[in-house]
């Protein structure tokens, strides 16, 4: 059975009572342990689709099931709880809290769990080690390079051991070398730690790392 099942979803935004159709009747499945690349030109709806799967936006039509939970039926606060448990986010611009250290940033999602302070510290240190930043624990984002910031963000995304890792153009703001390192890291998370990953990108070299590639164009999947 598939881990993520997207069924006939459509998404529209309204601007001044005018409908903007972003996604039209999209269906696909993602199996556990998959590494899916989502490609397409700018404005084709990639981020929108990712946001729907990650439960921060709601489809206009259709349903999305993640490990047998229909998330389109959850209310706002159930969704928040569900995200904390099942989703790890990686953003193009890292989205770290600038006032918090690497450690504190990675610890954030664990503050929503029932873990003790000691357990949290162990989890955070382990996650930072996996991404290769065991020696940058108390650095602030502005004391890190872009690649390092993105690795902190990845540590924050995996520290709760989420069901799905969603990455929206994770290399979009990085130089070639750093981008390569981030892609290697994602690949390793997929092979070594069996993380299911959905990665949006419009960089063909990034997409090569994915096992499967789907293309979005004008809101339709091919």
């Amino acid at each position, binding site marked *: 059975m598939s881990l993520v099942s997207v069924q006939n979803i459509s998404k529209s935004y309204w601007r001044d009572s005018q409908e903007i159709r972003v996604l039209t009747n999209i269906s696909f499945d993602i199996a556990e342990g998959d590494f899916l690349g989502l490609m397409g030109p700018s404005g084709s709806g990639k981020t929108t689709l990712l946001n729907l799967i990650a439960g*921060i936006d709601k489809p206009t039509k259709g349903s999305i099931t993640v490990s047998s939970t229909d998330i389109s039926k959850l209310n706002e*606060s159930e969704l928040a709880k569900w*995200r904390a448990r099942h989703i790890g986010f990686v953003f193009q611009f890292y989205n770290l809290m600038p006032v*918090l250290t690497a450690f504190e940033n990675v610890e*954030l999602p664990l503050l929503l769990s029932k873990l003790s302070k000691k357990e949290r510290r162990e989890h955070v240190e382990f996650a930072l080690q996996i991404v290769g930043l065991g020696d940058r624990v108390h650095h602030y984002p502005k004391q890190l390079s872009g690649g390092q910031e993105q690795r902190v963000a990845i540590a924050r995304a995996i520290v709760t051991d989420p069901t799905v890792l969603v990455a929206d153009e994770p290399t979009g703001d990085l130089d070639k070398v750093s981008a390569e390192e981030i892609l290697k890291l994602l690949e390793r998370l997929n092979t070594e730690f069996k993380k299911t990953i959905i990665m949006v990108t419009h960089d063909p070299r990034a997409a090569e790392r994915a096992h499967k590639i789907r293309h979005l164009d004008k809101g339709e999947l091919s």
Partner: protein
Amino acid sequence: MKIPLTYTLKSLWTRKLTTTLTIGGISMVVFVFAAVLMLAYGVEKTLIETGSDENVIVIRKAAQAELQSQIDRDAANIIKTLPELAATPDGKPFAANELFVLINIFKKGSGDMGNVTVRGITSESMLLRPQIKILEGKMFTAGTSEIIVGSSIAKRFQGCTIGERLKFGGNYWTIVGVFDGNGTGFDSEIWGDVEQMLPAFGRPVFSSLTFRLKNQSDFDALKTKIESDRRLNYLEIQHEKEYYAEQSRLMAIFIRVIGTVVSIIFSFGATIGAMITMYAAVANRTVEIGTLRSLGFRRRNILAAFLIESVLIASLGAAIGLFTASFLQLFVISTVNFGTFSELAFGFTLSLAVIKYTAIFALGIGFIGGFLPAVRAARLNIVNALRAS
């Protein structure tokens, strides 16, 4: 509260300038508010401490204070012989019939005239008020035109030092001593022999009679007794403490009302300042809010974080404002007490109640100023907030 306090504190620290300015604005308003409460409390404390728990004062029923009161010698003598009264060590009634008049003296510095209380006393007056100490010089000699002045009078009025003579009531009076009333209203009075003062002012009657009871529990019975005695029923007895508390009421209420109105007007400014600061904080951190929400933090966590941030700013403002205001305790103010029409010296006085009301006032500013911005932060749409980058 799930969002860590470190995040709030460090965020405040990041915008040092705005945070400092906002805290500064709130602290100034808090300062004014605290100063007013301290002043009102200072008046109350000075007058309440003037009265003693053990003493009972008799004035004319229709009079609000000693100034308008008259007790004739016969009535005073009848009360003095009542069995309920305590006796002094040398066997006399523990009671003092006193005269209370206002005179005008030039103030130092401004050169304005001020109303000063002159109190004609008896030797029992000093026994009734053991807190009075002669600071300099000596006690006046009974039967002479010697007088002693309260420490605050010596400090604030012209010609009120030892050796000088004051002219009032058609006589010259020689100052032979300065007394300390331990921060009470007596510090703002001039004392001399009542039997010298009555004829000088051409007054046939006393103003008040203050005495001590053998048993405090006799008060109610004595009150009834006096009220039902045809010779005495124009008089009223009161605990001295309550009498002086009453003298402070008008003044304290006046200060509080004026002060609160002014503070409330200022507080609009401070609240709007806090609101602008917090709206800016929300706008600058839109992406952070979106990110926190995407990680699973709830709307109410965001609401709490921003409210706490605002209340924290206000608390710091309160702390600074109160700390600064506490130095006002070093100053003494002398002004006319509306209750008695006489000059009264009193200080800004800090109390737990003052701290409590000031804290509530400041937290109110923080809470009201932070509420709408916090609601906006909590209501942000996650996707739009994340797109703000």
